[in-house]
């Protein structure tokens, strides 16, 4: 079998057309890695400048009332990700800027896609675009005539006469075509690794290995299926057109239809509906800016009792800050409920979409590709959650300062100095570790393994009775 693979490669390398296509394609692939890297560096620089600018503004606050500072707030910019060089996922359509302030949880805004007219329906020239759409096509073209040509030229008969088993030949052909895909994939990852050598971490290596694995599986499915068709059908054209049909269905048609459908099956609320529901739930709680609110009065009574005093003016603390924090705590529970519900819907959509991998391994590949490259919706949601957790800590620090910092209730003119603002930590994004989210992609990986086994079985049992002439 090894000899057949070796021979196949020898033939491939001798073919001028194949060499020409390969060189052109490798050049585009390398260009995609270089451009992706350059873009990430440039975006990272813009991000860092914006981050520093906003932080500088915060630490330069001379003196300010802590609650005014909560309204002044800060801004978080979605960091660019080194892994998104390989697969950008949802990054170009999600927002990049999130305002962090008191009383409200804002939405992430200013996506890249909203800042220009439409350009590419399939995203930027990232390696994932080439690896997902173009490489499989190359494999189809390579494999479509692999057996039929041997049949037509009579070489297949010769090989069988020399002692090679048809199954061995078909598997060897599959592996040789598959290897071509693996070589291209390895080349991209190698160049990517070289360019980012200093930034490589264990997590990035683990993610890249899983990325590599998922593509290897998909390429095997494509190569195996095409060689199978080539063996079963009488001519290469039929094998090629059949596989092209499958490729169109798998990559262009089904993912789009399924994605549109899952959003209908598990519907998300409109923004207005969502905000109305949030507002209604919040109105049932405590209003931090309304001292005459019933719940505020109840909280006041409780605090007065705790401190054993008759009025807020006798309190050693600032009750306004405490009321603001109670308002925040209630708001947080409302947010948890409504955003939690949205996250559940998104999770259901994702799970339904993942099941599409049963009929279409490309769906599994897409999921794992952006998932392992930390650029899917799950990672985006993780980022949003980190920002919200930071917001809670940030606002609590300000409210606590208002409460326990030395001011009295009603003293809104009281200000805290610059040292305090400097002590408020900046948002520190912790990239999600693959070990924490790996289980979310197990279904995709399993489905691709099942597909691989099915293709092997198809080759083993489906080619038993092939005509060798």
């Amino acid at each position, binding site marked *: 079998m090894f000899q057949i693979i070796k021979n196949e490669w020898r033939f491939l390398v001798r073919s001028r057309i194949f060499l020409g296509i390969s060189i052109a394609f490798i050049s585009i692939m390398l260009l995609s890695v270089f*451009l*992706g890297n*350059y*873009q990430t560096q*440039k*975006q990272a620089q813009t991000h860092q400048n*914006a981050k520093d600018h906003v932080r500088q*503004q915060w630490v330069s606050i001379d003196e300010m009332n802590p609650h005014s500072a909560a309204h002044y*707030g800060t801004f978080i*910019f979605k960091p660019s990700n080194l892994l998104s060089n390989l697969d950008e996922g*949802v990054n170009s*359509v999600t*927002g*990049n*800027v999130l*305002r962090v302030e008191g009383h409200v949880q804002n939405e992430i805004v*200013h*996506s*890249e*896609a*909203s*800042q*220009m*007219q*439409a*350009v*590419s*329906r*399939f*995203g*930027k*020239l*990232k390696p994932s675009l080439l690896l997902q759409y*173009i490489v499989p096509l190359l494999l189809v073209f390579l494999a*479509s*005539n692999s057996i039929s040509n041997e049949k037509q030229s009579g070489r297949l008969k010769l090989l069988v006469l020399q002692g090679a088993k048809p199954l061995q030949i078909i598997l060897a052909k599959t592996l040789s075509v598959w290897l071509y895909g693996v070589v291209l994939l390895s080349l991209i990852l190698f160049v990517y690794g070289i360019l980012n050598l200093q930034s490589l971490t264990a997590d990035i290596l683990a993610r890249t290995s899983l990325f590599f694995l998922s593509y290897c599986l998909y390429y095997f499915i494509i190569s195996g299926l095409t060689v199978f068709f080539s063996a079963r059908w009488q001519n*290469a*054209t039929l094998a*090629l*057109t059949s596989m*092209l*049909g499958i490729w*169109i269905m798998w990559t262009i*048609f089904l993912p*789009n*239809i399924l994605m549109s459908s*899952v*959003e*209908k099956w598990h519907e*998300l609320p*409109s*923004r*207005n509906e969502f905000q109305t529901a949030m507002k209604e739930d919040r109105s049932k709680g405590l209003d931090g800016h*309304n001292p*005459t*609110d019933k719940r505020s009065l109840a909280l006041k009574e409780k605090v007065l009792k705790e401190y054993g005093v008759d009025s807020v003016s006798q309190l050693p603390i600032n009750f306004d800050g405490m009321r603001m924090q109670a308002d925040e705590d209630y708001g947080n529970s409302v947010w948890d409920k409504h955003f939690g519900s949205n996250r559940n819907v998104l999770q259901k959509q*994702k799970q339904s*979409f993942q099941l599409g991998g049963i009929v279409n391994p490309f769906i599994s590949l897409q999921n794992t590709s*952006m998932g392992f490259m930390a650029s899917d*919706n799950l990672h985006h949601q993780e980022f949003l959650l980190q920002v919200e957790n930071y917001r809670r800590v940030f606002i609590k620090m300000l409210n606590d300062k208002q409460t326990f910092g030395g001011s009295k209730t009603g003293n809104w003119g009281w200000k805290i100095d610059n040292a305090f603002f400097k002590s408020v930590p900046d948002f520190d994004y912790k990239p999600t570790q693959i070990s924490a989210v790996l289980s979310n992609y197990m279904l995709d990986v399993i489905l691709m393994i099942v597909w691989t086994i099915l293709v092997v079985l198809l080759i083993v049992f489906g080619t038993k009775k092939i005509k060798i002439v």
Partner: protein
Amino acid sequence: MRNLTIFLYEWKHFVGSPFKIVAVLLFILASIYGLHNGADLYKKQNAEIERINKEAETKIETTLSYFENNQKGPENRPWIDVTSPFWALWHTPTYHFKKPSPALVYNIGQTEQYGFYKAIGTSSSPYDADMTNEISNPERIQSGTLDFSFVILFLLPLLLLVLLYNIKGQEAEHGFLPLVFVQTGSKNWWLLSRTAFYTLLLLLVLFGVMLYGAMLTNVFDSEHVFGNIFLWVTLYLFFWVIIYFLILKYGKNTVSNTLQMIGVWLLFAFIIPATVQQWITIEKPTNLMVDLIDVSRDTKSEINAQSIQKIDAQLFELYPNLKNTKVAKENITTSGIRGLSTDALINVEMKNATKTIEEENESKNKLISKTYWFNPITYFQNKLNQLSNTHYNDYETYRNTIQKSVDKRNKIMVFDVWNDIKVNKEKYLEYITTLSNNE
């Protein structure tokens, strides 16, 4: 006559090829699915607009009841006084909508990148958070909706490929190409007639599905929309027919022709647009709107911290007629009046900041437009976006309308506060009429 015979004979070729029939049927199914997706979005947006309008009506009725019952506002919010211009305007719900075009059935375009309704206040900006896209699954937005334009732009060339790929190649492989040429006289006319058959077949299919789409929304209510979109779809079809015809004319065999056809498709559908987008983002990285952030916080604080004299001078520059108001004439120096007027000054600064952003976006769009000559799919996509009012420029126009509404609201606020207007029911109704007029 001979060409007509070839043309009609192709029908027999077509019906004798189940592969091609299935491909056409799949294309029709995909088109219908895409049309329904567009129509669903059109209906969804209209329903949402109707729901928001109803919600606004309820709010207006509540505020009107305050005037009718001599109340100043809700009982649990004693600080609200709807007889003051500030609170009356606060309680005048004004929404600006980007009403969906019936042509959305054909092309969703950039609709899902932006919001289509906006609540206007004196401190609103066209770049507020509610101007972003609706709550949706970003993975779906990223992969795009399978609408009719997707079917046209990406699947139509593939269908054409399926219909044409074996023309000439098959005859060459079977060895009777010279015979065909002898029988038909001209190989170019033979090829052209066969290609023309499929072109006509596709035109009929496209016309049929587009007519079906027109029944889903009120496409014929908008003048020339159907005709214009059909014209551009036809031009797009011809674009691909010419390319494939040339490949067939100079091609040697089926496999090589198929490879070339799919190669061109990959180049135009994937490689070129993706490279252009990559280049644009390198050339002009995503704007993180730092200028807007600065205005919304620091400039705002600076304006609010100014002396009354400075605020007055800036307000008089903005609104020269303000000098004729009661507050100006009587030289009333209440800081509260200025506090209610500074939103107008902040609005000016916000407009300056957004102008820079729009200019930067415009330069990106110009760069993209410059690539049209070698980036045809992006060109046709944006052409369709323009025809269905879902282009970036349509949303820019929408943002401009919003900005005008914010300007108008601020002007009313400043003048009514400076004229010490007491708002009653009639005045409140006047606010509603004036502010709901988008012109």
